[in-house]
């Protein structure tokens, strides 16, 4: 009885009701009826992503394997862990001031949960590249890019490219031998862009070769610029899913 009274006291006041809109499962009087189920979706911020009802076959795990949703979730997870890492990282390099690399050492040695969060960020990044690839393959084999979803496939390819760029720009930040030379392989190729090769390389490196300027530049790209562009394309991607009639199929 006391427990029920407490629940009522928490739920039945102005503040609680202002937070949870009618139909929310946390609001007093939610009942498992068709009406409240519909309201639960409709009066929730998730209504931006999901309609009130979805096709039944889309629930089957083997239809989507949740790949698109997981890619998005990994993006969120990487944002959170990335913000944590930003507190302990300075994108500075150069003879005598190897701050970035020292920060990496400190992160694993003396920051609470530093190593764990860095691991999560690293493995999460690889996982996201992987899920985005798989998501693309899933969409292809279901023919889910067919009209009216052609343009959303194009947006998806751009998002794949952005994912790769996010991962690649982050690869340089530890400023160890692995990072430097892996990135060198990539940026050398960019130098072979026809006509503007040298200019492209200079803009991306901030120098004729990878150095402190490159680190700062790729840091800004990694934590600000590319995530920003990615969010814009994600918004279009999700919006088009709903506008194009939700999940594709059934086959």
């Amino acid at each position: 009885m006391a427990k029920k009274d407490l629940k009522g006291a928490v739920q039945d006041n102005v503040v609680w009701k202002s937070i949870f809109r009618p139909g929310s499962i946390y609001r007093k009087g939610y009942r498992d009826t068709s009406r409240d189920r519909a309201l639960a979706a409709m009066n929730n911020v998730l209504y931006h992503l999901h309609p009130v009802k979805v096709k039944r076959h889309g629930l089957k795990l083997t239809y989507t394997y949740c790949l698109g949703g997981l890619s998005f979730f990994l993006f969120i997870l990487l944002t959170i862990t990335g913000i944590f890492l930003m507190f302990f990282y300075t994108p500075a390099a150069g003879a005598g001031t190897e701050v970035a690399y020292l920060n990496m050492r400190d992160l694993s040695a003396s920051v609470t949960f530093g190593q764990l969060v860095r691991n999560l960020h690293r493995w999460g990044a690889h996982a996201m590249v992987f899920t985005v690839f798989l998501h693309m393959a899933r969409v292809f084999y279901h023919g889910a890019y067919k009209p009216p979803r052609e343009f959303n496939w194009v947006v998806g390819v751009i998002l794949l490219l952005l994912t790769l760029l996010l991962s690649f720009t982050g690869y340089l930040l530890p400023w160890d031998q692995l990072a430097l030379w892996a990135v060198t392989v990539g940026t050398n190729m960019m130098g072979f862009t026809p006509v503007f090769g040298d200019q492209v390389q200079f803009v991306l490196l901030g120098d004729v070769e990878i150095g402190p300027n490159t680190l700062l530049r790729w840091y800004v790209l990694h934590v600000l610029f590319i995530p920003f562009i990615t969010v814009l394309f994600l918004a279009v991607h999700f919006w088009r899913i709903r506008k194009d009639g939700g999940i594709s199929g059934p086959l």
Partner: protein
Amino acid sequence: MSDEVQIDQEVYDRLIGEGKSERIARAKAKAAAVRQAKIAEGQSLGPKPAEEASKKLEEFREKAASGGGVATKTAAPAGGDAGAGGRLTPEQRAARVAASLGQEQQPPSMGVPASSEHTHRLLALVPPSGIQQVQAKQQDKVYTWPHLLLVEFVALLAVTALLLVASFFLDAPLGSLANPNEVPAINKAPWYFMGLQELLRYFHPMVAGVTLPGVFMVGLMAVPYVDKNPSAHPENRKLANMAFTFFLTFWGLLVIIGSFLRGAGYEWVWPWVEGLGFTL
């Protein structure tokens, strides 16, 4: 008015003088002539005032109630305290409602404020062509909450758990400090770019690093516009599926070769002989 067209010559000449076409000038001049004739007869112009409209309606009702209307008779219920035709007029009905609600009886307003000059008709005929016909097939659907959201939540938790376990046992690599003057023996791009690095082995850097990736990206984006086959069923799109599978296998093979079968100096090695030259 006689049969022949009466026109107001003065108006006609003025409009022609203003450069209006003969047809318009004639029509307006004719309208002006009609207006003048009506004013001469003492008729009022413009929309009818409200009182006049209700008076006409009242006349019509009386005529109908006294046996003129067939429709009202057939629709009338037998007996009761209904009006003359066995049916309440809107005014009577309004009066009853007002009385039952304890309000003072007011003159029927017909939905128009009594003070207003004109009546407005809120009635329109909609042609069948104006109705949007949506022909959608009934689909088997379920509520997003709880069905879909629960599945998503479980998937999300599973991935989080997986990543946490992996992060607990496997540490992200951190090599020695970057040194531009010391090229490591094994020098590889991240795994998702290993396909390109492997291509670099066979082609000029411009082809492997710029042209081919560009072609792949544009090709991928063009897929929906090239594949005109409307069917999404695997049975009907064997060519598309085969081509894409071939592309994926080819790409996966390049990544695997580059990641696991290349060692120092990017030469071919067997990982069980020389060890795994691969870092995630």
